[in-house]
Protein backbone atom coordinates (compact mmCIF):
# COMPACT_ATOMS: atom_id res chain seq x y z
CA UNK A 1 0.00 0.00 0.00
CA UNK A 2 1.18 3.48 -0.85
CA UNK A 3 0.67 6.31 1.60
CA UNK A 4 1.01 9.97 0.93
CA UNK A 5 2.37 10.94 4.34
CA UNK A 6 2.13 14.65 4.07
CA UNK A 7 1.40 16.37 0.86
CA UNK A 8 1.44 20.06 0.27
CA UNK A 9 -0.39 21.03 -2.84
CA UNK A 10 0.50 24.32 -4.31
CA UNK A 11 -1.91 25.43 -6.93
CA UNK A 12 -0.83 28.82 -8.11
CA UNK A 13 -0.86 30.35 -4.75
CA UNK A 14 -3.63 28.25 -3.30
CA UNK A 15 -2.23 26.27 -0.46
CA UNK A 16 -3.55 23.02 0.86
CA UNK A 17 -2.15 21.07 3.72
CA UNK A 18 -3.53 17.59 3.52
CA UNK A 19 -2.54 14.88 5.90
CA UNK A 20 -3.93 11.57 4.85
CA UNK A 21 -3.36 9.41 7.87
CA UNK A 22 -5.26 6.18 7.89
CA UNK A 23 -5.98 6.39 11.62
CA UNK A 24 -7.82 9.67 11.85
CA UNK A 25 -9.14 10.42 8.39
CA UNK A 26 -11.21 8.47 5.93
CA UNK A 27 -9.06 7.34 3.04
CA UNK A 28 -9.75 5.71 -0.25
CA UNK A 29 -7.51 3.94 -2.69
CA UNK A 30 -6.91 4.73 -6.34
CA UNK A 31 -4.55 2.33 -8.08
CA UNK A 32 -3.00 1.52 -4.72
CA UNK A 33 -2.54 5.10 -3.53
CA UNK A 34 -4.28 6.41 -0.43
CA UNK A 35 -6.30 9.59 -0.78
CA UNK A 36 -8.77 11.73 1.14
CA UNK A 37 -12.29 10.43 0.45
CA UNK A 38 -13.17 13.52 -1.60
CA UNK A 39 -10.56 12.60 -4.21
CA UNK A 40 -12.30 9.29 -4.89
CA UNK A 41 -15.67 11.00 -5.22
CA UNK A 42 -14.18 13.33 -7.84
CA UNK A 43 -12.36 10.42 -9.51
CA UNK A 44 -15.56 8.39 -9.86
CA UNK A 45 -17.64 11.21 -11.26
CA UNK A 46 -14.90 12.06 -13.76
CA UNK A 47 -14.36 8.51 -15.02
CA UNK A 48 -18.14 8.08 -15.22
CA UNK A 49 -18.28 11.22 -17.35
CA UNK A 50 -15.76 9.58 -19.70
CA UNK A 51 -18.34 6.84 -20.34
CA UNK A 52 -20.90 9.49 -21.40
CA UNK A 53 -19.01 10.20 -24.63
CA UNK A 54 -20.09 6.85 -26.10
CA UNK A 55 -22.93 5.75 -23.81
CA UNK A 56 -24.71 9.13 -23.75
CA UNK A 57 -24.81 12.01 -21.26
CA UNK A 58 -25.46 10.62 -17.74
CA UNK A 59 -25.23 7.15 -19.26
CA UNK A 60 -28.58 7.61 -21.00
CA UNK A 61 -28.31 6.24 -24.51
CA UNK A 62 -30.31 7.30 -27.53
CA UNK A 63 -28.74 4.80 -29.93
CA UNK A 64 -27.05 1.46 -30.50
CA UNK A 65 -24.52 1.77 -27.67
CA UNK A 66 -26.15 0.36 -24.49
CA UNK A 67 -27.39 2.66 -21.72
CA UNK A 68 -25.61 2.51 -18.36
CA UNK A 69 -27.99 4.65 -16.32
CA UNK A 70 -30.26 2.70 -13.99
CA UNK A 71 -28.58 -0.65 -14.65
CA UNK A 72 -28.11 -3.04 -11.79
CA UNK A 73 -24.73 -2.56 -10.10
CA UNK A 74 -23.94 -6.28 -10.06
CA UNK A 75 -24.78 -6.52 -13.75
CA UNK A 76 -22.37 -3.69 -14.65
CA UNK A 77 -19.54 -5.06 -12.50
CA UNK A 78 -19.98 -8.57 -13.89
CA UNK A 79 -20.06 -7.21 -17.43
CA UNK A 80 -16.71 -5.43 -16.92
CA UNK A 81 -15.16 -8.57 -15.41
CA UNK A 82 -16.47 -10.69 -18.25
CA UNK A 83 -15.16 -8.25 -20.85
CA UNK A 84 -11.75 -8.33 -19.22
CA UNK A 85 -11.71 -12.12 -19.00
CA UNK A 86 -12.81 -12.41 -22.61
CA UNK A 87 -15.97 -14.25 -21.53
CA UNK A 88 -18.19 -11.78 -23.29
CA UNK A 89 -17.89 -10.66 -26.91
CA UNK A 90 -17.01 -6.97 -27.31
CA UNK A 91 -15.62 -4.50 -29.79
CA UNK A 92 -14.07 -1.85 -27.53
CA UNK A 93 -15.11 -2.82 -24.01
CA UNK A 94 -12.39 -5.38 -23.41
CA UNK A 95 -9.86 -2.65 -24.12
CA UNK A 96 -11.58 -0.41 -21.59
CA UNK A 97 -12.05 -3.14 -19.00
CA UNK A 98 -8.32 -3.81 -19.03
CA UNK A 99 -7.55 -0.16 -18.26
CA UNK A 100 -9.67 0.10 -15.10
CA UNK A 101 -9.36 -1.59 -11.69
CA UNK A 102 -11.87 -3.81 -9.87
CA UNK A 103 -12.61 -1.03 -7.41
CA UNK A 104 -13.29 1.34 -10.31
CA UNK A 105 -15.76 -1.22 -11.74
CA UNK A 106 -17.51 -1.18 -8.36
CA UNK A 107 -17.56 2.61 -8.11
CA UNK A 108 -18.82 3.01 -11.67
CA UNK A 109 -21.46 0.29 -11.14
CA UNK A 110 -22.75 2.08 -8.06
CA UNK A 111 -22.66 5.46 -9.80
CA UNK A 112 -24.70 4.35 -12.82
CA UNK A 113 -27.09 2.19 -10.79
CA UNK A 114 -28.05 5.30 -8.83
CA UNK A 115 -29.02 7.32 -11.94
CA UNK A 116 -32.71 7.01 -12.54
Amino acid at each position, binding site marked *: MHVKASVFLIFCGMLFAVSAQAEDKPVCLIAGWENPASVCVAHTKTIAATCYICHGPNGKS*SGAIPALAGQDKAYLVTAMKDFKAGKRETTVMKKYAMGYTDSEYEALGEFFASIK
Partner: protein
Amino acid sequence: MTMQRRDFLKFAGASLAGALASASAHAKPSSGRPHIVIVGAGFGGATCAKYIRMWDPTIKVTLIESNAQYFSCPMTNWVLGGLRTMEETVQSYKNLPGYGINMVHDTVIGVDTDKRSVTTKDGKKIAYDRLVLAPGIEFMTDLIEGYAEGEAAGKVLHAWKQGPTLATSQATLLKKQLEAMPDGGVFVIASPPPPGRCVSGPYERACMVAHYFKQHKPKSKIIMLDGHFDVVSKGPMFKKAWKKYYAGMIDHRPYNLVTKVDHKSMIVTSEFEDVKADVINIVPKQRAGAICKLAGVRADSAGVWCPVNGITYESPKVPFVHVLGDSVASNMPKSAHVSNNQAKICAAALVEMYNDREPNSYPIIGSTSYSATSDHTSGPIAVVMRYDPDKEAYIRQPGGGASEDSDEINFEYNKTWFDHIWADTFA
Protein backbone atom coordinates in the same frame (compact mmCIF):
# COMPACT_ATOMS: atom_id res chain seq x y z
CA MET B 1 5.17 -1.02 3.01
CA THR B 2 5.02 2.71 3.13
CA MET B 3 6.00 4.79 0.14
CA GLN B 4 6.29 8.49 0.16
CA ARG B 5 5.26 9.70 -3.22
CA ARG B 6 6.50 13.23 -3.11
CA ASP B 7 6.33 16.09 -0.71
CA PHE B 8 5.32 18.72 -3.14
CA LEU B 9 3.05 18.75 -6.13
CA LYS B 10 3.71 21.69 -8.29
CA PHE B 11 0.76 22.89 -10.29
CA ALA B 12 2.35 26.03 -11.61
CA GLY B 13 5.64 26.66 -13.29
CA ALA B 14 6.08 29.72 -11.10
CA SER B 15 8.87 29.28 -8.64
CA LEU B 16 7.87 27.27 -5.65
CA ALA B 17 9.12 29.87 -3.21
CA GLY B 18 7.23 32.58 -5.02
CA ALA B 19 4.06 30.54 -5.01
CA LEU B 20 4.43 29.87 -1.31
CA ALA B 21 5.12 33.50 -0.51
CA SER B 22 2.04 34.69 -2.34
CA ALA B 23 -0.09 31.78 -1.20
CA SER B 24 -2.11 33.52 1.44
CA ALA B 25 -2.62 36.62 -0.66
CA HIS B 26 -4.15 34.59 -3.49
CA ALA B 27 -5.79 31.85 -1.47
CA LYS B 28 -9.22 33.14 -2.41
CA PRO B 29 -10.19 35.18 -5.44
CA SER B 30 -10.53 38.84 -4.56
CA SER B 31 -14.27 39.19 -5.00
CA GLY B 32 -16.44 36.20 -4.16
CA ARG B 33 -16.41 33.22 -6.48
CA PRO B 34 -13.80 32.74 -9.22
CA HIS B 35 -14.31 33.74 -12.83
CA ILE B 36 -13.05 31.25 -15.40
CA VAL B 37 -12.75 32.47 -18.98
CA ILE B 38 -12.67 29.80 -21.69
CA VAL B 39 -11.57 30.56 -25.25
CA GLY B 40 -13.02 28.31 -27.98
CA ALA B 41 -16.33 26.44 -27.77
CA GLY B 42 -15.30 23.21 -29.46
CA PHE B 43 -15.12 19.72 -27.94
CA GLY B 44 -12.58 20.94 -25.37
CA GLY B 45 -13.89 24.39 -24.41
CA ALA B 46 -17.64 23.80 -24.49
CA THR B 47 -17.34 20.57 -22.48
CA CYS B 48 -15.16 22.29 -19.87
CA ALA B 49 -17.62 25.18 -19.50
CA LYS B 50 -20.62 22.87 -19.17
CA TYR B 51 -19.04 20.51 -16.64
CA ILE B 52 -17.64 23.28 -14.41
CA ARG B 53 -21.14 24.70 -14.17
CA MET B 54 -22.76 21.29 -13.61
CA TRP B 55 -20.29 20.36 -10.89
CA ASP B 56 -20.17 23.78 -9.20
CA PRO B 57 -22.77 26.34 -10.26
CA THR B 58 -21.17 28.97 -8.01
CA ILE B 59 -18.15 29.33 -10.33
CA LYS B 60 -18.61 32.01 -12.99
CA VAL B 61 -17.81 30.85 -16.52
CA THR B 62 -17.47 32.97 -19.65
CA LEU B 63 -17.11 31.05 -22.91
CA ILE B 64 -15.78 33.07 -25.87
CA GLU B 65 -16.26 31.66 -29.38
CA SER B 66 -15.70 33.30 -32.78
CA ASN B 67 -18.41 31.44 -34.64
CA ALA B 68 -22.20 31.61 -34.20
CA GLN B 69 -22.49 27.81 -34.48
CA TYR B 70 -20.09 24.91 -34.00
CA PHE B 71 -18.75 23.46 -37.22
CA SER B 72 -17.86 19.85 -36.45
CA CYS B 73 -15.07 18.02 -38.27
CA PRO B 74 -16.33 14.60 -37.14
CA MET B 75 -18.84 13.36 -39.75
CA THR B 76 -17.56 15.63 -42.55
CA ASN B 77 -15.91 12.63 -44.22
CA TRP B 78 -19.35 11.01 -44.26
CA VAL B 79 -20.63 14.08 -46.10
CA LEU B 80 -17.94 13.60 -48.75
CA GLY B 81 -19.11 10.00 -49.11
CA GLY B 82 -22.70 11.13 -49.60
CA LEU B 83 -23.83 9.44 -46.36
CA ARG B 84 -24.77 12.70 -44.59
CA THR B 85 -25.30 16.39 -45.37
CA MET B 86 -23.15 19.29 -44.14
CA GLU B 87 -26.19 20.65 -42.26
CA GLU B 88 -26.15 17.54 -40.07
CA THR B 89 -22.59 18.28 -38.93
CA VAL B 90 -23.37 21.76 -37.55
CA GLN B 91 -24.15 22.06 -33.83
CA SER B 92 -26.10 24.82 -32.10
CA TYR B 93 -24.80 26.70 -29.04
CA LYS B 94 -28.34 27.52 -27.88
CA ASN B 95 -28.34 25.15 -24.89
CA LEU B 96 -25.09 26.30 -23.26
CA PRO B 97 -26.47 29.51 -21.64
CA GLY B 98 -29.00 27.24 -19.87
CA TYR B 99 -26.11 25.95 -17.72
CA GLY B 100 -25.40 29.50 -16.57
CA ILE B 101 -22.50 29.89 -19.00
CA ASN B 102 -21.95 33.45 -20.16
CA MET B 103 -21.55 32.81 -23.90
CA VAL B 104 -19.79 35.57 -25.84
CA HIS B 105 -19.52 35.43 -29.64
CA ASP B 106 -16.28 37.27 -30.29
CA THR B 107 -12.64 36.50 -31.09
CA VAL B 108 -9.92 36.78 -28.45
CA ILE B 109 -7.00 38.73 -29.91
CA GLY B 110 -4.87 39.42 -26.86
CA VAL B 111 -3.98 38.00 -23.45
CA ASP B 112 -2.40 39.86 -20.56
CA THR B 113 -1.17 37.03 -18.37
CA ASP B 114 0.21 39.42 -15.70
CA LYS B 115 -2.95 41.42 -15.17
CA ARG B 116 -5.06 38.35 -16.08
CA SER B 117 -7.39 39.66 -18.76
CA VAL B 118 -8.17 38.98 -22.42
CA THR B 119 -9.08 41.45 -25.13
CA THR B 120 -11.42 40.75 -28.02
CA LYS B 121 -11.86 41.87 -31.60
CA ASP B 122 -14.97 43.87 -30.62
CA GLY B 123 -12.87 45.78 -28.10
CA LYS B 124 -13.98 44.06 -24.90
CA LYS B 125 -11.59 43.51 -22.02
CA ILE B 126 -12.52 40.54 -19.83
CA ALA B 127 -10.74 39.78 -16.54
CA TYR B 128 -10.17 36.20 -15.39
CA ASP B 129 -9.05 34.29 -12.34
CA ARG B 130 -8.19 31.40 -14.62
CA LEU B 131 -8.02 31.20 -18.39
CA VAL B 132 -8.69 27.99 -20.34
CA LEU B 133 -7.52 27.98 -23.97
CA ALA B 134 -9.15 25.44 -26.30
CA PRO B 135 -8.71 27.02 -29.74
CA GLY B 136 -7.99 23.87 -31.76
CA ILE B 137 -5.34 24.03 -34.47
CA GLU B 138 -3.63 26.44 -36.82
CA PHE B 139 -2.06 25.28 -40.12
CA MET B 140 1.65 25.73 -40.91
CA THR B 141 0.91 26.46 -44.55
CA ASP B 142 4.25 28.21 -45.04
CA LEU B 143 5.93 24.77 -45.05
CA ILE B 144 4.32 24.05 -48.44
CA GLU B 145 5.38 26.29 -51.31
CA GLY B 146 2.37 27.60 -53.21
CA TYR B 147 -0.19 26.47 -50.60
CA ALA B 148 -1.36 29.97 -49.63
CA GLU B 149 -1.78 31.03 -53.27
CA GLY B 150 -3.62 27.81 -54.10
CA GLU B 151 -5.93 28.20 -51.13
CA ALA B 152 -6.65 31.83 -52.01
CA ALA B 153 -7.50 30.74 -55.56
CA GLY B 154 -9.89 28.12 -54.13
CA LYS B 155 -7.92 25.30 -55.75
CA VAL B 156 -6.18 23.83 -52.69
CA LEU B 157 -8.27 22.78 -49.68
CA HIS B 158 -7.44 21.22 -46.31
CA ALA B 159 -11.04 20.61 -45.15
CA TRP B 160 -9.44 19.84 -41.76
CA LYS B 161 -11.20 22.68 -39.95
CA GLN B 162 -14.70 23.97 -40.82
CA GLY B 163 -16.62 27.24 -40.64
CA PRO B 164 -16.97 30.18 -40.23
CA THR B 165 -20.17 29.54 -42.24
CA LEU B 166 -21.67 26.45 -43.82
CA ALA B 167 -21.13 27.80 -47.35
CA THR B 168 -17.47 28.62 -46.72
CA SER B 169 -16.65 25.44 -44.78
CA GLN B 170 -13.89 23.69 -46.68
CA ALA B 171 -15.71 20.35 -46.57
CA THR B 172 -18.60 22.02 -48.42
CA LEU B 173 -16.17 23.35 -51.04
CA LEU B 174 -14.37 20.00 -51.35
CA LYS B 175 -17.67 18.18 -51.85
CA LYS B 176 -18.56 20.60 -54.66
CA GLN B 177 -15.20 20.08 -56.36
CA LEU B 178 -15.54 16.31 -56.18
CA GLU B 179 -19.03 16.58 -57.69
CA ALA B 180 -17.74 18.81 -60.50
CA MET B 181 -14.77 16.53 -61.25
CA PRO B 182 -15.17 14.47 -64.47
CA ASP B 183 -15.26 10.67 -64.27
CA GLY B 184 -11.72 9.37 -64.62
CA GLY B 185 -10.28 12.28 -62.63
CA VAL B 186 -7.59 12.08 -59.95
CA PHE B 187 -8.21 13.17 -56.35
CA VAL B 188 -5.04 13.77 -54.34
CA ILE B 189 -5.11 13.65 -50.53
CA ALA B 190 -1.88 14.65 -48.83
CA SER B 191 -1.41 14.26 -45.08
CA PRO B 192 1.41 15.12 -42.69
CA PRO B 193 3.18 12.75 -40.30
CA PRO B 194 1.86 12.75 -36.68
CA PRO B 195 1.24 14.46 -34.36
CA GLY B 196 -1.76 16.27 -35.77
CA ARG B 197 -5.54 16.43 -35.66
CA CYS B 198 -7.28 13.09 -36.26
CA VAL B 199 -4.52 10.89 -37.69
CA SER B 200 -6.99 8.28 -38.97
CA GLY B 201 -9.02 10.96 -40.78
CA PRO B 202 -7.17 10.94 -44.13
CA TYR B 203 -7.71 7.19 -44.55
CA GLU B 204 -11.38 7.41 -43.63
CA ARG B 205 -11.64 10.27 -46.13
CA ALA B 206 -10.12 8.05 -48.82
CA CYS B 207 -12.75 5.37 -48.06
CA MET B 208 -15.61 7.85 -48.16
CA VAL B 209 -14.53 9.57 -51.37
CA ALA B 210 -13.91 6.17 -52.97
CA HIS B 211 -17.43 5.17 -51.93
CA TYR B 212 -18.76 8.28 -53.67
CA PHE B 213 -16.65 7.63 -56.79
CA LYS B 214 -17.81 4.02 -56.94
CA GLN B 215 -21.42 5.20 -57.16
CA HIS B 216 -20.96 8.21 -59.43
CA LYS B 217 -17.61 8.20 -61.23
CA PRO B 218 -16.15 4.69 -61.14
CA LYS B 219 -13.18 5.43 -63.43
CA SER B 220 -11.76 7.97 -60.96
CA LYS B 221 -8.71 7.43 -58.74
CA ILE B 222 -7.46 8.55 -55.35
CA ILE B 223 -3.76 9.11 -54.73
CA MET B 224 -2.74 9.43 -51.08
CA LEU B 225 0.55 11.22 -50.52
CA ASP B 226 1.30 10.20 -46.96
CA GLY B 227 3.98 12.07 -45.02
CA HIS B 228 4.22 9.05 -42.68
CA PHE B 229 5.99 5.78 -43.50
CA ASP B 230 2.75 3.79 -43.31
CA VAL B 231 -0.94 4.20 -42.56
CA VAL B 232 -0.70 5.96 -39.18
CA SER B 233 -3.73 4.41 -37.50
CA LYS B 234 -5.95 1.32 -38.05
CA GLY B 235 -3.61 0.27 -40.88
CA PRO B 236 -4.68 -3.36 -41.27
CA MET B 237 -8.37 -2.42 -41.16
CA PHE B 238 -8.07 0.32 -43.79
CA LYS B 239 -5.91 -1.79 -46.10
CA LYS B 240 -8.40 -4.65 -45.97
CA ALA B 241 -11.29 -2.30 -46.68
CA TRP B 242 -9.50 -0.66 -49.61
CA LYS B 243 -9.00 -4.08 -51.17
CA LYS B 244 -12.46 -5.35 -50.42
CA TYR B 245 -14.58 -2.34 -51.36
CA TYR B 246 -12.46 -0.16 -53.62
CA ALA B 247 -10.04 -2.46 -55.46
CA GLY B 248 -7.71 -0.49 -57.73
CA MET B 249 -9.13 2.89 -56.71
CA ILE B 250 -6.92 3.97 -53.79
CA ASP B 251 -3.19 4.32 -54.36
CA HIS B 252 -1.54 4.87 -50.97
CA ARG B 253 2.00 6.22 -51.26
CA PRO B 254 3.86 6.39 -47.93
CA TYR B 255 7.04 8.46 -47.26
CA ASN B 256 5.64 11.15 -49.48
CA LEU B 257 5.63 14.46 -47.64
CA VAL B 258 4.26 17.24 -49.83
CA THR B 259 6.55 20.28 -50.18
CA LYS B 260 4.98 22.24 -53.02
CA VAL B 261 1.78 22.74 -54.94
CA ASP B 262 1.09 24.65 -58.15
CA HIS B 263 -2.62 25.33 -58.49
CA LYS B 264 -2.29 26.61 -62.06
CA SER B 265 -0.85 23.36 -63.43
CA MET B 266 -2.59 21.37 -60.64
CA ILE B 267 0.64 19.61 -59.76
CA VAL B 268 1.36 18.43 -56.23
CA THR B 269 5.03 17.87 -55.49
CA SER B 270 6.33 15.61 -52.75
CA GLU B 271 9.88 14.84 -51.68
CA PHE B 272 9.85 12.14 -54.37
CA GLU B 273 7.47 12.90 -57.18
CA ASP B 274 5.14 15.25 -59.07
CA VAL B 275 1.49 14.21 -59.20
CA LYS B 276 -1.09 15.73 -61.53
CA ALA B 277 -4.46 16.18 -59.84
CA ASP B 278 -8.00 17.24 -60.68
CA VAL B 279 -8.97 17.95 -57.08
CA ILE B 280 -6.35 18.80 -54.45
CA ASN B 281 -6.77 18.18 -50.71
CA ILE B 282 -3.65 18.91 -48.67
CA VAL B 283 -3.68 18.69 -44.89
CA PRO B 284 -0.70 20.78 -43.78
CA LYS B 285 1.27 20.27 -40.56
CA GLN B 286 -0.40 21.92 -37.60
CA ARG B 287 0.30 23.73 -34.36
CA ALA B 288 -1.70 24.94 -31.36
CA GLY B 289 -4.19 27.74 -32.12
CA ALA B 290 -2.78 31.27 -32.50
CA ILE B 291 -4.07 32.45 -29.13
CA CYS B 292 -1.76 29.93 -27.43
CA LYS B 293 1.22 31.71 -28.93
CA LEU B 294 -0.07 35.10 -27.73
CA ALA B 295 -0.50 33.70 -24.22
CA GLY B 296 3.04 32.29 -24.25
CA VAL B 297 1.95 28.67 -23.68
CA ARG B 298 3.01 27.21 -27.04
CA ALA B 299 6.08 26.16 -25.16
CA ASP B 300 7.26 22.73 -26.31
CA SER B 301 10.78 22.50 -27.71
CA ALA B 302 9.61 23.21 -31.26
CA GLY B 303 7.27 26.01 -30.17
CA VAL B 304 4.37 24.12 -31.75
CA TRP B 305 2.17 22.55 -29.03
CA CYS B 306 1.41 23.44 -25.39
CA PRO B 307 2.80 21.34 -22.53
CA VAL B 308 0.40 21.03 -19.57
CA ASN B 309 0.27 19.59 -16.08
CA GLY B 310 -1.62 16.30 -16.53
CA ILE B 311 -3.73 16.79 -13.39
CA THR B 312 -5.01 20.33 -13.95
CA TYR B 313 -4.10 21.03 -17.60
CA GLU B 314 -2.42 24.21 -16.41
CA SER B 315 0.56 25.42 -18.41
CA PRO B 316 3.82 24.87 -16.48
CA LYS B 317 5.07 28.01 -18.21
CA VAL B 318 2.30 30.53 -17.57
CA PRO B 319 0.39 30.34 -14.26
CA PHE B 320 -3.41 30.57 -14.33
CA VAL B 321 -3.55 29.55 -17.99
CA HIS B 322 -4.85 26.06 -18.84
CA VAL B 323 -4.89 24.41 -22.28
CA LEU B 324 -7.24 21.73 -23.64
CA GLY B 325 -7.82 19.72 -26.80
CA ASP B 326 -5.77 19.54 -29.95
CA SER B 327 -3.46 22.34 -28.75
CA VAL B 328 -2.03 20.22 -25.93
CA ALA B 329 1.46 18.69 -26.30
CA SER B 330 1.03 15.07 -25.26
CA ASN B 331 1.12 11.44 -26.26
CA MET B 332 -2.68 11.40 -26.53
CA PRO B 333 -4.45 11.33 -29.88
CA LYS B 334 -5.72 14.75 -31.03
CA SER B 335 -9.39 13.88 -31.22
CA ALA B 336 -12.80 15.17 -30.25
CA HIS B 337 -13.10 12.23 -27.85
CA VAL B 338 -9.85 13.06 -26.03
CA SER B 339 -10.57 16.82 -26.03
CA ASN B 340 -13.93 16.21 -24.33
CA ASN B 341 -12.29 13.87 -21.82
CA GLN B 342 -9.44 16.29 -21.00
CA ALA B 343 -12.03 19.03 -20.50
CA LYS B 344 -13.81 17.01 -17.80
CA ILE B 345 -10.53 16.30 -15.99
CA CYS B 346 -9.64 20.01 -16.05
CA ALA B 347 -13.17 20.98 -14.94
CA ALA B 348 -13.07 18.50 -12.04
CA ALA B 349 -9.63 19.73 -10.92
CA LEU B 350 -10.74 23.37 -10.97
CA VAL B 351 -13.94 22.59 -9.07
CA GLU B 352 -12.07 20.62 -6.40
CA MET B 353 -9.46 23.30 -5.92
CA TYR B 354 -11.94 26.17 -5.80
CA ASN B 355 -13.68 24.23 -3.03
CA ASP B 356 -10.43 23.79 -1.05
CA ARG B 357 -10.18 20.11 -1.83
CA GLU B 358 -7.25 18.23 -3.27
CA PRO B 359 -7.58 17.58 -7.02
CA ASN B 360 -7.44 14.00 -8.21
CA SER B 361 -3.85 13.07 -9.05
CA TYR B 362 -4.84 9.95 -11.01
CA PRO B 363 -6.99 11.06 -13.93
CA ILE B 364 -7.78 8.60 -16.70
CA ILE B 365 -8.22 9.34 -20.40
CA GLY B 366 -10.35 6.93 -22.40
CA SER B 367 -9.79 7.34 -26.12
CA THR B 368 -12.10 5.75 -28.64
CA SER B 369 -12.23 6.58 -32.32
CA TYR B 370 -14.39 5.06 -35.01
CA SER B 371 -13.68 5.31 -38.74
CA ALA B 372 -16.11 4.39 -41.48
CA THR B 373 -14.78 2.22 -44.29
CA SER B 374 -18.00 2.10 -46.37
CA ASP B 375 -21.65 3.15 -46.14
CA HIS B 376 -22.35 0.27 -43.73
CA THR B 377 -19.06 -0.59 -41.98
CA SER B 378 -16.83 1.09 -39.39
CA GLY B 379 -14.08 0.00 -37.05
CA PRO B 380 -12.78 1.30 -33.71
CA ILE B 381 -9.55 1.92 -31.88
CA ALA B 382 -9.69 2.17 -28.09
CA VAL B 383 -6.97 2.99 -25.58
CA VAL B 384 -7.04 3.78 -21.86
CA MET B 385 -4.32 6.07 -20.49
CA ARG B 386 -3.79 6.55 -16.76
CA TYR B 387 -1.90 9.50 -15.32
CA ASP B 388 1.05 8.56 -13.18
CA PRO B 389 1.88 11.56 -10.98
CA ASP B 390 5.38 10.27 -10.25
CA LYS B 391 6.27 9.93 -13.91
CA GLU B 392 4.22 13.05 -14.72
CA ALA B 393 2.86 11.28 -17.79
CA TYR B 394 -0.20 9.48 -19.08
CA ILE B 395 0.67 5.82 -19.39
CA ARG B 396 -0.98 3.69 -22.04
CA GLN B 397 -2.60 0.66 -20.42
CA PRO B 398 -2.11 -2.81 -21.89
CA GLY B 399 -4.84 -4.27 -24.06
CA GLY B 400 -5.64 -1.18 -26.12
CA GLY B 401 -5.47 -0.96 -29.88
CA ALA B 402 -7.33 -1.01 -33.16
CA SER B 403 -9.67 -3.59 -34.59
CA GLU B 404 -8.35 -5.30 -37.69
CA ASP B 405 -11.78 -5.39 -39.28
CA SER B 406 -14.63 -3.01 -39.86
CA ASP B 407 -18.20 -4.24 -39.64
CA GLU B 408 -21.91 -3.37 -39.40
CA ILE B 409 -22.21 -3.28 -35.62
CA ASN B 410 -19.39 -0.77 -35.31
CA PHE B 411 -21.04 1.35 -38.00
CA GLU B 412 -24.09 1.54 -35.72
CA TYR B 413 -21.85 2.43 -32.75
CA ASN B 414 -20.10 5.05 -34.86
CA LYS B 415 -23.44 6.75 -35.61
CA THR B 416 -24.37 6.70 -31.92
CA TRP B 417 -20.94 8.10 -31.00
CA PHE B 418 -21.57 11.22 -33.14
CA ASP B 419 -24.95 11.86 -31.48
CA HIS B 420 -23.66 11.25 -27.98
CA ILE B 421 -20.49 13.34 -28.11
CA TRP B 422 -22.40 16.25 -29.61
CA ALA B 423 -25.09 15.94 -26.95
CA ASP B 424 -22.50 15.64 -24.17
CA THR B 425 -20.60 18.69 -25.40
CA PHE B 426 -23.29 21.06 -26.65
CA ALA B 427 -26.78 19.95 -25.53
